[in-house]
């Protein structure tokens, strides 16, 4: 399979950027989907041991990739402990 592709690329080298861009796009999609699946605090894989994963976050922990106008270092926990 890879041998066939390598032979075709040698005879049509203009196809190489196509592979690069398609491969890059697919990699970015897969990386974002796995970040959502594994790191998103709304997702709970283990309902018995970790039922509310959003409660494991610190009060100043940032999950968003870009936070505009939000100084996360100054936040602290509101609400009393119990």
């Amino acid at each position: 399979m890879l041998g066939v592709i390598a032979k075709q690329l040698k005879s049509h080298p203009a196809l190489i950027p196509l592979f690069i861009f398609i491969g890059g796009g697919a990699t970015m999609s897969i990386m974002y989907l796995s970040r959502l699946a594994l790191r998103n605090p709304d997702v709970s894989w283990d309902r018995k041991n970790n039922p509310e994963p959003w409660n494991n976050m610190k009060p100043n922990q940032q999950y968003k990739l870009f936070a505009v106008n939000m100084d996360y270092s100054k936040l602290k926990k509101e609400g009393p402990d119990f």
Partner: protein
Amino acid sequence: MSDTIDEKIKNYRTAPFDARFPNTNQTRNCYQNYLDFHRCNKALSAKDQDTAPCDWYQRVYMSLCPVSWVTKWDDQLEAGSFAGKI
């Protein structure tokens, strides 16, 4: 330098930013504070402490939640059919 919870309740204006729920959809924020209020009441009264600090959570969920949801959940709690873990 952290205000005591009484001062915070007295100076309450609206629900503060919660890093656990940074996006526009605040449904879970509302539900979590509702659960926290009842869990706090249950935990503090089991320890025979004053449940006044729990009012913080009540203020927050009253700010965030639609009134119809609050009344529906209160009715479910009284009837014993509330689905959340308290």
